[in-house]
């Protein structure tokens, strides 16, 4: 047990965070480009955008480390949403850093990393505009954000925009296997499957869930993973919605969701999410179904989180399915 305790000292996400660009999983094209930049120097200003947990911050860090090596500590200024990044900080701290002289090999520049840049105010972003241009000979900016539309257009215009896509299941699986091997974790295939499924391409979540499952149950199998993740399985919900008859739907609702103790709110929100992307049905039909689900959602939030409401929802949905078929 003591050995296990030791290995849990550091969150695995941190422990297995890649330190080199070549270790980063997924988005091969973009990473390839970053490798070229790391080799040749002259990093452009850039914005990396994409969903959480797909390696945005990690790749910026790797790039900065590979570019700057030992001078990382003095030539990099990193600010994230936990730091104050109001307009004053941009005008003072960031500008001063950009003006600072720093001895670097030719072709290397100081780097200012602004993580979670989409949470910066428009005013602060405005204040970055000319700074980025005037000091571009010595300082380059790297932004990481979830939604690139929260970055004002003038900044986007000054940057190379790199969009990261979701990781594929295989990529997540590969990484998980490496970790289970390194940590000597006992697992079953359906356990990993469940991890990958619940993570939806989010590597960080997959690793976190893996660690939680290991900490709680030591064996990673499907049941244990769902105990940890604890939300209705989208596939079951999908099965419930698409069931051929109302009886089937209700059976699934009763047996596989309600009796397992999932709360009505969780069931209904998962239904909403599933229905949104239910490509088996045509869009107008989906919209009508979403309307019914949403109304049930409202009722449940008003305090009537009963089985009756959910059953009524299913009944309504099945009439919608009938009417269009």
């Amino acid at each position: 047990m003591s050995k296990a305790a030791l290995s849990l000292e550091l969150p695995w996400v941190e422990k297995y965070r890649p330190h080199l660009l070549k270790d980063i999983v997924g988005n091969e094209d973009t990473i390839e480009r970053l490798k070229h930049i790391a080799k040749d120097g002259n990093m452009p200003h850039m914005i990396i955008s994409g969903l959480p947990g797909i390696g945005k911050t990690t790749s910026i860090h790797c790039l900065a480390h590979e570019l700057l090596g030992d001078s990382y500590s003095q030539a990099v200024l990193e600010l994230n949403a936990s730091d104050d990044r109001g307009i004053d900080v941009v005008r003072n701290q960031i500008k001063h850093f950009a003006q600072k002289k720093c001895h670097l090999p030719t072709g290397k520049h100081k780097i200012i990393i602004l993580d979670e840049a989409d949470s910066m105010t428009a005013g602060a972003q405005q204040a970055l505009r000319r700074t980025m241009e005037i000091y571009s000979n010595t300082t380059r900016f790297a932004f990481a954000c979830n939604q690139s539309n929260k970055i004002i257009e003038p900044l986007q215009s000054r940057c190379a925009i790199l969009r990261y896509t979701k990781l594929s299941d295989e990529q997540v699986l590969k990484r998980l296997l490496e970790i289970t091997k390194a940590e000597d974790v006992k697992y079953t295939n359906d356990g990993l499957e469940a991890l990958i499924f619940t993570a939806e391409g989010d590597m960080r979540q997959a690793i976190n869930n893996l660690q939680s499952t290991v900490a709680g149950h030591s064996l990673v199998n499907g049941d244990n993973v769902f105990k940890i993740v604890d939300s209705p399985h989208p596939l079951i919900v999908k099965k419930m919605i698409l069931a051929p008859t109302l009886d089937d739907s209700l059976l699934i609702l009763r047996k596989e969701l309600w009796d397992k103790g999932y709360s009505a709110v969780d069931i209904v929100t998962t239904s909403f999410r599933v229905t949104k992307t239910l490509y088996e049905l045509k869009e107008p039909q989906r919209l009508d179904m979403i309307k019914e689900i949403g109304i049930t959602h409202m009722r449940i939030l008003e305090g009537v989180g009963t089985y009756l409401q959910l059953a009524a929802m299913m009944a309504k949905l099945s009439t919608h399915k009938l009417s269009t078929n």
Partner: protein
Amino acid sequence: MVSITDFFVKGNAKGAARKKKNDDGGDTKKTTIDIIDLDDSDLDIAEVKSPVKRESIVIDTPPSVKKQIDKVIKKEEKPPSKVPVKNKSSNASVTAADVLATIPSVDLSEVHIKENVKFDFRAAAISGDSEVSTQGDFPEGQDNCLLGLTVVFTGVLPTMERGAAENIARRYGAKVTKSISGKTSFVVLGDEAGPKKVEKIRQLKVKAINEDGFRKLIAGMPADGGDGDAAEKARLKKQQEEARVLKEANEMAEEAEEKELKIKQARLSGDFVKREDLIREQDKLWTVKYAPTNTNQICGNKSSVNKLKNWLINWEASKASNFKSPGRDGSGIFRAAMLYGPPGIGKTTAAHLIAKDLGYDILEQNASDVRSKSLLNAGVKNALDNMSVVGYFKNKDDVNDVNGKKFVIVMDEVDGMSGGDRGGVGILAQFCRKTSTPLILICNERNQPKMRPFDRVCLDVQFRRPDANSLKARLMTIAVREKFKLDPNVIDKLVQATRGDIRQIINLLSTISKTSKNIDHTNISEISKSWEKNIALKPFDIVHQMLSGRIYSDLGANTFTLNDKIALYFDDFDFTPLMVQENYLSTRPSVLKPNESHLEAVAQAADAISLGDLVERNIRSSEQLWGLLPLHAVLSSVLPSSKVAGQFAGRVNFTGWLGQNSKRNKYYRLLQELQYHTRLSTSSNKISLRLEYMSTFKHRLLDPILKDGSDGIPSVISLMDDYYLTKEDWDYIMEFMVGPESTDLLLKKIPSTVKSGFTRKYNSTTHPVAIYRAGVSTTGSTTTVKPDFEDVVDADDSVPATDDTEDGKDDDLKKDKLIKQKKAPVKRKASSTATKKGAAKKKKA
């Protein structure tokens, strides 16, 4: 030659087949048939004649055919632009030219087929089995095979999206325009083409082909657009362009060498070298490296650049005349200029280059500097009257260069003044009025309310997004210099993706070229997709997209998914529902189910909107159930739009809810006040006061004055005293009336002497006052004060003037001696000039 005849025969056969089908489906759509019938008559002629015409061209006008040509020309009245082309090609008697000439004429016969296809497709769509195919099966054409042709796409093409088709045309070197003109080579017609466009086609006799014809055209055209006249010209132009690009690239290279040499020499001789010059070229950002070095290199916006330049050249002269003479272009009366336009198109660069060209020294302030009122006063104000030290020393020997000792002050990102820059905008606008140094302001959004203080004090110079042509040369130069291959035809695509942002394109090229040395149509769509700027849309654009029928068809729903639609709502979730509600009635639905009327669709949409309102109440009320936001997105915006989406009839209106809501609040407040005043004599709450008393009040307060003039005044005043109404209340009551009771016209009938007599009379006596809880201020109808920056500034400016206006207003508004009313003006005095203006207006009235 054989193939041509094949084409023709096939075309005819197809045409016949299609026509048959057309007859089958004919009874479903009446309106389209009308159009088609018209075309058909044309078509018949064309079908008969076109083979002849073709032959004639090929055979190089033997006499027997010549007659027929004449006939054809006479009958068809070919547009003049086309005839010369044909003659030329036949004179040239080059085989390639023949091919070129013949293929389009095949398409001509196809036009008619095309029209039939259009009809078929419609019928097919109605019966429900619309074919969904991708553009993957599109034939590969020769390089640049459409060179020199101008194409217009209109309507919905049967199997591909219009954008994709346009891209294909561009990829093969054609020029794609939006409107049909004499220069248009041919039109690709699709389903639901606008009636105007069809009319225009007929009018100008432009060749119209369908998607099939377009496919064949591409498959059949020779490389580089054959030998046609237009193609020749285009090719020539292309060559010239290429030559120019090469020349520029060489010049640039020479320049760079020269500069290097200079630096080397300077270093050897120990002279001072600017730090920036020591940085290796390859370590610079491309946007810096390839920034224009003189005004001629600025892409696009030539006239704007010239306007600014002229203004600056004439600045000293205008100053001498104290900015009184407008000069030739009217710019002589402005001490400051305001450049505005979207980012990345060279505003700042233009300002800097022009100032440098004219020998000015530049003092720049941008959003990274604090620009509050006090700091601007301390810093910039001094500079307004100063002289440049650098300029003074550099130019001391040169007596003629008067500008050398002068500054230009460049204020970048003026609209970026925010938070900490309190009062900055106001003080800057003041500087604009009195500066003795040229002042150039730069901003993105000129129309924002916070930029209003600059109205009429600056010369407005608009910068527009440059089009692809003005960028082409520059980008190609860069490509040559950086040694990667850039297909000129994809530049349009890049321009489109970045919305004309030059800087972004250069950034893009610099990043892409790191890994791939070849940018052409094989990888362009991927590139432009990932580089498309993602900007939160403005409410107008959101609603425009939301209500466009395209995204709700089966095909559209696959490319623009439900999630995308919901994301549209989240771009501005305060305004989207209101805007949808405002505009959902002004569409012509294209998504109606069979047997569904417009009204039914509207009813369903309205139902969804009302449900959405219920949800919103849950979200915004004390319950704060923000988890319901996605539901609100669907109910308030997506679902109603999906019912009525279609073509917009008219323009998108801004939501009227905001205005109506504040009006409602105002009346509610007034009613409250009336109820306080009258409650000693009435026994009703607010609502019944409005419903039961108000109309009687109106009659008894207004009719005597209308009927008896000044004689009716005493009775009115005594009634007012009975109900503890003030003179203001009298006005309010008149305002409340709507419909047939509306008092607007009646009030105008009262002679102004009677009106003022009424006021005087009322003010000359004392009146009973209902005392009520203090704190409910009597906010008049004019006080809708918006707290924003201008107010703050203006209030400072105009303090001395306030007293006069106040006095005047007091008389004028006929305030009586009640305590509360004396308070009100005091409050207003502090608040803003808006009230004062209102008061002044009233005075005039």
